């Protein structure tokens, strides 16, 4: 945590629960983190760990009912959970923007690419059709879509997956937001295109001075692109810290398991490590530490007392009974 700069976004004890026919489900259970201007934060976790739901809550995309968001989300010190829906919408696009996982389906199939890229710019800046078109070309150039002007009137199905993701990014950048949330931006793409998109995101972040929240389950992506990272499991943060520390010296057994299960180029021939078992279904969490049924190092305490996320050094926090200071009463 770089204490020198005031946080741009300060998430405090964020909880998201959903009413379902099978009872209440707690998708995000008391998550806190801060994001400084221009910083890159990674959120790592398996599917269903609550990482996407958490950022959807920040964007204000959780429909209520059935969803309920509580806690505080301070944007420049103002709690955006208490402001009106109108003010909330004004923040979206302008200050906070989001890039979705599968760009192909996150673009409207029956609107032209150009109109989608410039849509919010046109709505918010009340400019002419021609200005909007020019803005769309400028944005598409910026995300390096070749011959942008001739492609304005194309539809998303005429674009490849990687190009769709570029369009999606261009759309998110239209109002020059200060925070860009990218929810698994490279998952649906093949490996070479993944690298291009990540490089593009890093470049854009530097050019525009945005803060970037990168949600992924791809540890390779995190290692390259991110300053700080948080590991989520079953709706809570189990470990957070500077990315070098997290990779070199992981403290939580879940983080350790994740890192061990990464295929390594120098470990050819060995059997790939896998964490045993499966993540618990949301709403049916085990008592104590949610990870304890899968943990190889569990102790008696793990099944009854829920560990709290506590600092183990000034650049690393962990929620585990085994990690010295991380021991909760």
């Amino acid at each position, binding site marked *: 945590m770089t204490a020198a700069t005031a946080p741009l976004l300060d998430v405090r004890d964020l909880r998201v629960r959903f009413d379902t026919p099978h009872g209440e489900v707690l998708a995000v259970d008391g998550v806190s983190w801060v994001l400084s201007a221009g910083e890159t934060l990674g959120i790592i976790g398996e599917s269903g760990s609550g990482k996407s739901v958490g950022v959807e809550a920040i964007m204000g995309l959780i429909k209520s009912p059935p969803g309920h968001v509580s806690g505080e989300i301070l944007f420049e010190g103002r709690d955006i959970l208490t402001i009106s829906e109108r003010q909330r919408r004004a923040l*979206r696009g302008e200050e906070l923007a989001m890039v979705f996982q599968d760009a192909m389906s996150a673009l409207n199939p029956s609107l032209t690419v150009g109109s989608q890229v410039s849509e919010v710019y046109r709505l918010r800046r009340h400019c002419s059709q021609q200005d909007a078109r020019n803005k769309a070309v400028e944005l598409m150039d910026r995300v390096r879509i070749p011959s942008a002007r001739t492609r304005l009137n194309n539809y998303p199905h005429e674009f490849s997956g990687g190009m769709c993701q570029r369009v999606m990014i261009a759309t998110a950048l239209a109002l020059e937001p200060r925070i860009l949330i990218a929810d698994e931006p490279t998952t649906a793409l093949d490996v070479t295109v993944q690298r291009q998109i990540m490089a593009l995101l890093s470049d854009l972040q530097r050019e525009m001075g945005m803060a970037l929240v990168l949600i992924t389950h791809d540890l390779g992506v995190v290692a390259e692109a991110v300053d700080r990272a948080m590991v989520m499991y079953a709706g809570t943060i189990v470990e957070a810290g500077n990315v070098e520390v997290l990779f070199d010296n992981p403290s939580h057994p879940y983080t350790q398991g994740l890192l061990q299960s990464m295929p390594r180029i120098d470990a050819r021939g060995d059997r790939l490590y896998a964490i045993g078992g499966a993540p618990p279904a949301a709403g049916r969490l085990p008592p104590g530490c949610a990870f304890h049924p899968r943990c190889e190092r569990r102790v008696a305490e793990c099944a009854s007392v829920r560990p709290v996320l506590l600092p183990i050094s000034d650049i690393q926090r962990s929620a585990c009974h085994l990690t010295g200071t991380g021991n909760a009463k």
Partner: protein
Amino acid sequence: MPYIVRRSFHSVVLLFVLVSFVFVVGRIIGDPALIMLGTNATEAALNQVRENLGLNEPIWRQYLVFLVDLLRGDFGVSFRYGFSVLPTELLRSEGTPVLPIVLERLPATFMLAGTALGFAFVLAIVMGCLAAMHPRSWIDHLVNVASLASVSVVQFWLGLILIIVLSVQLGLLPTGGYGSPAHLILPALTLAARPLGRISQVVRSAMLDELAKPYVAAARAKGVPETRVVFVHALKNASIPVVTITGDELSQLLTGAMLVETVFAWPGIGLLLIDSLARRDLPMVQAGIFVVAALVILVNLLVDIAYTVINPRIRLSSKASR
């Protein structure tokens, strides 16, 4: 070949099949001369009519003559119109041609069907979207019940009830007839019930599907106002099934108008057909059926063309059929 040309060619073929069907049915239901003159006619009079109408010719020749006449827009002359006495001495060159009479009735039917469908369509879009925006809310339940009721209600019964309540008891609107906007209200309402219910149900389910898609969340995330998300982003994609059902309902309306026109004495093509059936005026029935069916085919063609305008992927499918 462009899609629209191909599609139009299909329509022409269909129209030809239909015309042939009309011809065959006209010959199957009985001796046209007997139908025309009635069972009390003398054999001499019947023979005279058969001679005049060319009914003594071999059937294939009659069919050819029928087709050639059709190409010239000649559906024959009415058995009933323009005669003060029984038309025993009828010559083919005399009598009133049926087609102008049928076409004269079209504006009234169009006005009725257009008003009914326009009203049903706009209200159905609003109802369906509201229901989809608030699933399982009271508004959704209300729309469900209302649409189910309006689909299920029997048209002529609804028409009669509306007449009894609004015209007879409250005296607000005329019981039937034609001429002023007030005359249009009850038949249009009656006719609108079914399409209103069916279109709103399709709008609701199509919008529920669309609103759950990622591009809707993406549009919200980039700060598009909710009304625009629903009525521009989602509705545009939901419009394919909606246009299909609307075209279908328009075809149904043209035929459904027959009952409603009879109940309200609305002088459209439906009332003419029912009257002509009762008067056993075969050429008039043939021409009426032809015109209604041609309209249905035209509507279907227009719906198919509308798809290509709405959905860019269909427009290209003929090019990129990989």
